[in-house]
């Protein structure tokens, strides 16, 4: 029997996500899927899954759950956080960017996320929910997909897919920097001509701030309103993740994975795909500047991002022997070595230092 997770505390918004629901936007079905797709791919690689296996996406802080029905292997990516694994009154602490074997019956607590508003918690075997229209991603607005079409709640039991759990736990020794440089690159258009020259200059020349209205659908931005030549309304046309639409208020909205498929507001620009994960990590209050690039430059940036990701995926190595010994000791004797736990938490602090 495969293991399950029993949720004791769900976290602010924990949802099942994969690489998204492609192929049904013509019917009005949004793509959804992980906001930070590179983090999803790294988490799945760390636990030995295919790239697109479903994982949990955490927002702001993680859940508390018990692993039942068998052992589980998990990995946290995309943010820094302390992962506490508690069994028989003993607690071990781990950091992100590595696989961790969780014995049956253990309780896992993931603390506040640092360095990002979201993170991916991948499990060997993936999250086992029904495939709806080709994907396991939760459509929170449409209320389907994922676990009963909603974010997880206390008491939920979420199954994991079958996984043989063989081989050593892997880690990524040089995690990616999560530091936001403050700039998102955009390609102007498709309706840049709907805006005044001043508006384009303002958009590219002043800072915007992520407002409190920020979720998986998009980020409403605060800053200098943008002026239109005629008006904000267009005959509705298609939207992509990264589209920056501007309603009549003149304040831009950066659309993310849960965006609707078509919309009737002029779109001044599109965030390039290589910067979407960074956009998805932003929290209310974050400052953003936009820099215009050409499509060719955007494509080159994406290729460069893919090269880095491929290098990271190729560089996963077994977790250092000392830590593995500690883990085996835990399984065998239900003992925890204080020395190794301290090392683990040093590791966590080092990871935190890298992102701050």
């Amino acid at each position: 029997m495969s293991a399950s997770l029993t949720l004791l505390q769900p976290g602010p918004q924990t949802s099942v996500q994969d690489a998204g629901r492609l192929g049904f936007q013509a019917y009005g079905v949004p793509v959804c899927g992980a906001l930070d797709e590179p983090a999803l791919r790294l988490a799945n690689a760390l636990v030995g899954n295919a790239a697109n296996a479903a994982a949990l996406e955490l927002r702001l802080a993680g859940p508390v759950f018990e692993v039942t029905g068998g052992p589980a292997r998990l990995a946290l990516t995309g943010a820094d956080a302390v992962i506490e694994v508690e069994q028989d009154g003993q607690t071990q602490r781990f950091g992100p960017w590595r696989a961790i074997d969780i014995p049956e019956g253990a309780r896992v607590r993931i603390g506040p996320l640092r360095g990002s508003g979201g993170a991916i918690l991948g499990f060997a075997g993936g999250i086992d929910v029904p495939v709806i229209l080709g994907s396991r991603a939760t459509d929170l607005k449409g209320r389907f997909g994922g676990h009963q079409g909603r974010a997880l709640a206390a008491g939920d039991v979420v199954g994991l897919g079958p996984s043989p759990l063989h081989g050593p736990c892997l880690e990524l020794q040089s995690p990616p920097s999560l530091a936001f440089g403050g700039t998102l690159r955009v390609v102007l258009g498709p309706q840049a001509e709907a805006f005044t020259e001043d508006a384009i200059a303002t958009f590219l020349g002043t800072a915007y701030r992520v407002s409190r209205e920020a979720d998986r659908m998009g980020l409403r931005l605060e800053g200098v309103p943008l002026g239109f030549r005629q008006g904000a309304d267009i005959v509705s046309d298609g939207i992509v993740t990264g589209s920056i639409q501007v309603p009549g208020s003149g304040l831009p909205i950066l659309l993310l994975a849960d965006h609707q498929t078509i919309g009737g507001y002029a779109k001044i620009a599109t965030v390039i795909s290589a910067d979407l994960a960074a956009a998805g990590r932003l929290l209310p209050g974050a400052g953003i500047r936009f820099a215009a690039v050409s499509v060719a430059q955007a494509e080159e940036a994406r290729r460069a991002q893919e090269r880095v990701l491929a290098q990271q995926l190729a560089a996963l190595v077994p977790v250092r022997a000392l830590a593995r010994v500690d883990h085996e000791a835990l399984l065998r004797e239900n003992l925890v070595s204080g020395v190794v736990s301290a090392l683990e938490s040093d590791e966590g602090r080092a990871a935190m230092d890298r992102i701050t």
Partner: protein
Amino acid sequence: MTEENAVRHAARSRRLGALARFLELGDTALAVEFGATIAPEINALVHRTAALLAADPPEGLVETVPTFRSLLVHYDPRRTSAAALQESLAALDIGEARVEAPARIWRIPVLYGGEAGPDLTDVARATRLGEGEVIARHAGTVYRVYVQGFLPGFAYLGDLPAELDLPRLTTPRVRVPAGSVAIAQRMTGIYPVESPGGWRLIGHTPLRFFDPAQAPPTLFAPGDGVRFVPVEADEHAAIRAAVAHGAYQPACEASR
């Protein structure tokens, strides 16, 4: 112009590159735009292009999204580039894209007015028509499915008779019930799920328009016809009960 040149010109003019302009949406999509207005002829070009790309997808194509006057072409920048995709799209011969009468016309039962259509009175007042006349005009037109979007299974149906052309509500409702039949400008539509909305609600249908367990997940397909059929409260309730038991089959007229 020689006859040969004329033939060549006509052939060239049916190529996408001569009929549409291409707009960039970052490095993951191109919009193929045929015009700036809502018109059956322009929308037919959009759906024709979508069908051709579905039959023979260029390298790197992910999916397409038809809208009123443009086709959004999503692509995977790891497998193609905007330049390569645009070149193959521009060469696409789209042949004849005639506006054809819908092959099927759905008959959608609607309870108009009252709690089912809380804006009917205002619509009657604003259009200076009686409520009965608003219903007669709304139900007296066969609409075309131009586009699906906004919500899963929301179909933009046009064209609404010009006498019923009113702007959207200035303050959208926070909650519009699923099944609400609504109008805005020259469009009518049905909210498939509960959602916020700014269209004027004139009636309600018990039918369901989106089922994620089905593929395709929507009742309507592009180019379908839709006719609204007024029903009384008792019939509306009976249909609602039948739909809840999975015992209701939406009716369809063949039109050609």
